[in-house]
C-alpha cells in the first residue's frame, strides 16, 4: 500500500498535466482582473492643511471637515482613506510633505487653504501625476499655469471680488445706505495680494457708487494694526473694505474701537477672518454687523444636512454655522476626488484626473450649480452670498431667495453694542 501510494503521488498523468496547465492558464488569465479589484479599493488621499502657524485657525477648521468626511462620503457610496498632514502655514513644508505623502502611497492630494502652499503642492503633483483638488485657495495664477493634475473647486480672487463687489452694491441698495468713499485694507500674503490685483482691475468698471480712496497692504502677522487704522481713519472713508485672515481681523476691530473709528460698514469682498469662532469669542458684540460676501453652504441641500449631522456630534465645541465655509469646501474637494476615483474605477493618477475633469456633481454642499471644471481646471460657477454677523452668528442676508434676515447698514456705533 505504501509503495502504491508513493507511485501514485510520483506519477503525473497526461490528464493531470492538462488539468494543471488549464488551472495555471485560468489563474494567469484572471490576474489582471485581480489587479483591477485591488485598485478599486479606497482612494488614499493626503489632506494637506495649515493646522499650525499663522493660518492654523482656518486650517483646523478645514481639518474638522476632513475628519467627518469619510463617513458622509461612505454613505454616498464613495470610499476614501485620508492621511492628515500639517503643512504648518509654510510653502516649503507643503512641498516636502507632499513628496513624502506620495512616496508613502497617497493617490490624490486635497488642500491647502492658502495659495502659496497650494502652488507648491501643485508643482509636486504635476511632476508625480497625482490628482490635486484645491479646497480653498483663490490666487488666480493657480489655474493659469497650465497644471493638468490640479482642479480648483473654489472661486478665484477675481471671481470673489467680482461677485463680492456686485453684492456690495446690492447690500447698499437694500439698506439705502449712502456711501461716497471707501478704503481697501488687505493682508499682504499671496491671497491678499491677489485680491488687491483683482480689486485694482475690477473696481474701476464695477459701477459702484463710491470712490476708492486708497488700498493699504498690511502684514497679517503684525502684533497690532494701530498704525494701519490711524492711516485709514485719516482718510475718513464711509466704507472699510477688508481682506483679512483670522487674528488680524480681531486686531483690526480692536484698534478701530480704540481709535473710535466708526465707518458705516466693514465689508469683505471675499475673505476669511470676520466669521471665525475666534473672532466672535474675542470681540463679542463688537463682531456683529461685519459683512462678508463669500460662497456659503446651502442649508437646503441634503448633503449639507448630512454633513452637518455628522459634524455636530464629532465637534461639540464648534458651530457648523460658523465653520461651514471651510468645512464645506474641504468636504467638496474630497467629494470631487472620491467621485473621480469612483468614475475611473482605478487609483491610477491619469485615469482619476481624466474622470475629475469630467466631473458633473449636482448633489453637493455649497450654494451653486453642479460642480464642473473648465479646461483650466477651474469651477467657474461658484456664486457668493452676503453674510452678516448677527448675534455672533453668520447670517445670510442676500440674495433674498436664500436669506434668513435682512441686511443692516449702517453699523451701530461701537458704544451702542450690548
Amino acid at each position: 500500500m505504501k509503495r502504491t501510494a508513493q507511485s501514485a503521488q510520483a506519477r503525473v498523468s497526461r490528464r493531470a498535466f492538462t488539468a494543471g496547465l488549464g488551472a495555471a492558464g485560468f489563474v494567469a488569465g484572471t490576474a489582471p482582473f485581480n489587479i483591477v479589484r485591488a485598485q478599486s479599493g479606497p482612494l488614499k488621499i493626503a489632506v494637506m492643511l495649515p493646522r499650525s502657524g499663522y493660518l492654523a485657525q482656518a486650517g483646523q477648521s478645514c481639518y474638522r471637515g476632513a475628519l467627518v468626511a469619510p463617513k458622509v462620503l461612505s454613505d454616498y457610496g464613495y470610499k476614501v482613506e485620508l492621511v492628515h498632514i500639517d503643512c504648518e502655514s509654510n510653502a516649503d513644508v507643503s512641498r516636502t510633505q507632499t513628496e513624502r505623502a506620495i512616496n508613502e502611497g497617497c493617490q490624490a492630494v486635497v488642500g491647502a487653504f492658502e495659495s502659496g502652499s497650494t502652488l507648491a503642492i501643485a508643482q509636486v503633483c504635476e511632476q508625480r501625476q497625482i490628482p490635486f483638488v484645491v479646497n480653498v485657495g483663490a490666487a488666480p495664477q493657480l489655474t493659469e499655469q497650465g497644471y493638468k493634475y490640479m482642479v480648483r473647486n473654489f472661486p478665484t480672487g477675481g471671481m470673489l471680488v467680482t461677485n463680492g463687489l456686485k453684492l456690495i452694491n446690492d447690500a447698499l441698495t437694500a439698506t439705502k445706505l449712502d456711501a461716497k468713499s471707501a478704503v481697501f485694507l488687505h493682508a499682504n500674503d499671496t491671497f491678499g495680494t491677489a485680491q488687491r490685483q483683482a480689486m485694482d482691475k475690477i473696481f474701476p468698471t464695477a459701477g459702484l457708487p463710491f470712490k476708492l480712496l486708497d488700498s493699504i497692504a498690511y502684514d497679517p502677522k503684525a502684533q497690532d494694526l494701530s498704525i494701519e487704522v490711524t492711516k485709514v481713519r485719516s482718510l475718513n472713508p464711509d466704507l472699510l473694505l477688508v481682506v483679512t485672515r483670522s487674528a488680524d481681523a480681531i486686531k483690526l476691530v480692536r484698534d478701530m474701537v480704540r481709535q473710535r473709528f466708526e465707518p458705516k460698514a466693514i465689508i469683505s469682498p471675499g475673505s476669511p477672518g470676520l466669521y471665525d469662532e475666534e473672532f466672535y469669542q474675542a470681540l463679542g458684540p463688537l463682531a456683529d454687523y461685519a459683512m462678508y460676501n463669500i460662497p456659503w453652504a446651502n442649508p437646503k441641500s441634503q448633503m449639507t444636512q448630512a454633513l452637518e449631522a455628522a459634524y455636530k456630534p464629532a465637534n461639540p465645541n464648534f458651530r457648523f454655522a460658523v465653520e461651514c465655509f471651510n468645512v464645506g469646501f474641504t468636504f467638496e474637494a474630497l467629494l470631487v476626488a472620491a467621485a473621480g476615483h469612483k468614475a475611473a474605477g482605478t487609483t491610477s493618477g491619469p485615469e482619476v484626473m481624466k474622470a475629475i475633469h469630467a466631473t458633473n456633481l449636482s448633489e453637493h454642499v455649497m450654494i451653486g450649480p453642479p460642480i464642473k471644471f473648465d479646461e483650466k481646471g477651474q469651477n467657474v460657477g461658484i456664486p457668493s452670498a452676503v453674510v452678516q454677523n448677527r448675534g455672533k452668528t453668520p447670517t445670510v442676508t442676500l440674495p433674498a431667495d436664500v436669506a434668513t434676515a435682512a441686511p443692516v447698514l449702517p453699523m451701530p456705533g461701537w458704544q451702542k453694542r450690548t
Partner: protein
Amino acid sequence: MTIAIILNVVIQGVLTGLVYGLMALGLSVIFGVVRVVNFAHGEFAVVAMYATYLLFVTLGLDPIVSLFPIAIVFFGVGYLLQATLINRFVGRSEHEQFILLVGIAIIIVNGLLMIFGPDARPANLPYAIESYMIGDVFIDKARVYAAIGAIVVSSALFAFFRYTATGTAIRACADNLTGAAVVGLNVKRLYAFTFGLGLACVGAAGALMVTIADASPTLAQAFTLLAFTIVIIGGLGSMAGALVGGVLIGVSEALASFFLAPSMKSMFSFALLVAVLVLRPQGLMGRRA
C-alpha cells in the same frame, strides 16, 4: 493730514517701543555680562505671555499685576538655567552656545504648541479697547499702562546695577572678568544672577506685551529678531542703548507704516540696522571694542 494724526503715530511708536526696549534690555544685560547671546529670548517672552494669559483667565490677574510674580519666577528659572546648563558653555565656542540656545528655543516653541495649540490666546482686558483722548490725539490705555510698566521695571534694573553691591559686582564682572575673579567675586554665581535678571526683564516684557498682542507661539521668532535688531542698533551690552533702540524702532516702524506702507515697516527697521552696522558698528550707545 493733521499734526494730531502724526502725533498719534509717534506716540503709539514711543509707547510700543518702550515695551520692545524692556524686552531687548534682558538680552543686552545677559550679553553684556555673561557674553552669551540668548537665542531663545523671544521664546521666553512668549512663555511669559502665556503665563500672563493663564493668570488672567484663571485668577483674573491683570498683566500689570502679574508681571511681578512672573518676573520673580523667570528670575529663578534664569538663575537655575545658567547655573546648571549655560555656565558649562561659557567660554566654549560660539557655535556651541548657539546650538544650545536654539535647541532650548525649539523645545519651548514646540512645547507651547503641544500645550496651547497654534491659536492666538487673547486676554480680553477690560481696558483693551479703551483710549484716552487729548484734543484730537487718541492714546491707547493698554499701551500707556504697558509703557509705564516698562519704565518702572527698567528704572528698577538701572537702580539695582547702580546702587546695590551685587549690581556693582556684576558690572565689575562685565568690565573686567579677570579682575573680578582676582578680588574674590564668585563669577559663576554672578553670571547666574545676571541671567536671572535678564529673564526677569523678558518675563516682565512678555507680561506687558499681553496688553498689546495676543499670546501665540508664532511670535517667538519675531520677538527674538526684534530684540537682536534693537540691541544691535542701541549697542550690544548697553542697557540705555536697548531702551533707546526700542523707542527708535517703535517710532521708525510707526512712521514708515504711516508714510510708506504698513507692510514695509520691518524693511525699514532692517534698513536702520544696516545703516547702524555700516556707520557705527558698535551701536548708537555702545562702546568701541
